[in-house]
């Protein structure tokens, strides 16, 4: 691979190691595919800037401006931020005064609950994965399979015992309860995912380190973890995404103070004596997308950096 720094690297684009290079041709190809793939999301984002009366117009109004007359008026809508303010404050009855919808709280709850529980699951799960990978127990596969089994049943089946448990412990409607539940919810995937990464690592380096007298702890932190950063990033992203959008547990086990956005979102689906409030729903979804979008975006670097033995050999 040539060592000359390209203009892109000067601009701060990190070059992933361990993968081959392709040029602008690939950018064009991937760009077209990606944009097509992104189109349904883009339409949601566009809808979030439309008033209800324009949201369903046919032909679809997809341009916020007529580009100096280039686009026929039938395809142009007048963009508005009203939906975004409505997310947080709007009249809840016809002719009533605007009041707080509680969404500031719901956003805070979603961010708090998802991030804490995913991090917790990542810590506990990675330790367990390392254990399963390096110190197999008697019946190791059985344990792993039982852990997987907990993800196989629809949540509705286990909900009644969980509600009872939460009621007795006073966890119902508390942050602690839903965080613990989500942690458990994320563990199976975290464990399986991280185990498969640990399994792929070459044992030679670890064994050499052990012979040099490194403790198990040191081997784990200095040798194994750096090699599975891509895996950690991917697992975190998956956990975050799944938890972020979890619905049923949140519906039944959060109170009005700990409610998360996916539950409150249905307000715009058939709330308020009206069907779907398209602009409002789109605005909620767009706002709700932003945090997880950026977390994923910034973790991508780790995800795409790849693992080379250079980092391990030192």
């Amino acid at each position: 691979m040539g060592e000359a720094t390209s203009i892109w690297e000067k601009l701060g684009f990190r070059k992933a190691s361990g993968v081959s290079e392709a040029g602008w041709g690939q950018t064009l190809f991937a760009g077209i595919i990606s944009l097509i793939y992104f189109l349904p999301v883009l339409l949601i984002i566009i809808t979030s800037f439309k008033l209800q009366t324009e949201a369903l117009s046919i032909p679809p109004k997809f341009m916020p401006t007529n580009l100096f007359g280039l686009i026929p008026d039938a395809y142009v809508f007048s963009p508005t931020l009203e939906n975004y303010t409505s997310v947080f404050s709007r009249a809840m009855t016809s002719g009533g005064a605007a009041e707080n919808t509680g969404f500031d709280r719901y956003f805070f709850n979603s961010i708090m609950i998802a991030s804490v529980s995913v991090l917790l699951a990542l810590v506990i799960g990675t330790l367990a994965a390392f254990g399963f990978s390096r110190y197999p127990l008697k019946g190791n596969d059985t344990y792993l399979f039982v852990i997987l089994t907990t993800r196989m049943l629809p949540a509705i089946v286990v909900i009644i015992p969980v509600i009872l448990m939460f009621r007795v412990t006073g966890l119902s409607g508390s942050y602690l309860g839903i965080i613990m539940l989500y942690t458990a919810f994320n563990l199976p995937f975290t464990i399986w995912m991280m185990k498969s990464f640990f399994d792929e690592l070459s044992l030679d380096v670890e064994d050499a380190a052990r012979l040099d007298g490194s403790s198990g702890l040191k081997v784990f932190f200095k040798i194994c973890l750096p090699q599975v950063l891509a895996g950690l990033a991917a697992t975190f992203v998956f956990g975050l995404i799944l938890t972020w959008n979890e619905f049923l547990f949140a519906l039944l086990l959060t109170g009005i103070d700990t409610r998360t956005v996916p539950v409150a979102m249905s307000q715009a689906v058939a709330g308020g004596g009206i069907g779907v409030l398209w602009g409002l729903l789109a605005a909620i979804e767009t706002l709700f997308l932003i945090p997880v979008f950026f977390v994923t975006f910034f973790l991508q670097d780790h995800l795409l950096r790849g693992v080379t033995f250079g980092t391990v050999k030192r």
Partner: protein
Amino acid sequence: MTSTTAQTIPTTFTTVAPDNWKLAIVVGLVVSLLACLILPPNISFWIVGAMVAMVAMTFVVNAYHRHYYGGLLVSPAIAVLVVMNIFPLLWSLGLSFFAYQSNQQTIRFVGLANYVKILTDDLKAPENWANLTNTAMFVVLTVTAQMIVGFLLALMFAKQFPLRKYLLILVLTPMMLSVVAVGVFFSNYYDPTFGLLSYFIRLFTGEQFILMDNKAGAVAGIVFADAWMWSPFVMLLVLAGLVSVPKYLYEAAAIDRVSGWRRFWSITFPYIRGLLMLALLFRTIEAFKMADLVILLTKGGNGTMTISYHLIRIANEQNKTSEGAAISYVMLFIVIVLTNLYLYIANRRTEGA
């Protein structure tokens, strides 16, 4: 690898030591029992919890003394899972042997009657089978679509090219959406009057296009939305595997002038095989639980009723807790057989390779 030096520490049963788990269990049991009898449940629960923690701690100390790292590392995860997942699962397994409706106060042991009912009842069994067949159809279609699309997308992003990270995030976005929003907006895209699909087809045919009025169309609509949403999941897993292939292997292959196809099978594939398996496993499990999109797009009409949606109606709407539990355990059995089959094949491949 396991450096378990089995040195038994000489503790007798009565020694108060941090690793005497036998004594801890006895003390824990006695205190818990007393607490349950004397104190109100919302207090005694925490005392029982503390006792469990105490016993767990003695196990930990004991294990540490004996260099039992495997057990130590997995125990927090197992503890959380047992309390939050396995315990409720066993509870509902127990309920499947009773005649119990969550909105009634009576409960009666009926053995396997619930299972017999859902599998043989002349009205219920055909419905359950139809729902199961539909579910199987969805699983096959959507998982296949996700694996293919996800794999191709990952290959597309496996090479380094300008703007890659900005394009990749676009493709990852669908799975970050809430399923409610996806369902509602796709039902709009498919709507014959307001929908984009109908609009574009109409530009060519001049007729409004109704996608969802027949089984093929309804299934296609649901599978498309689901696969669109979750292919990025497969892609990300495969991509994480692709970028972890050590560079020097490719460099060695280049020196040896290995063909692209062979390079893929002998170098790349071993690195992503585990992750592909994982993707297949988790997407299959999730596809078996598919209900949200069905509810939002068709309400189960036009032959799209899935077992999971059926379960929601049985267990939630109609409060037939026991019958729901029985159906879900039959479903669990099928998923377990299937996943074991996957794992068996995967392991055999590993050994063969």
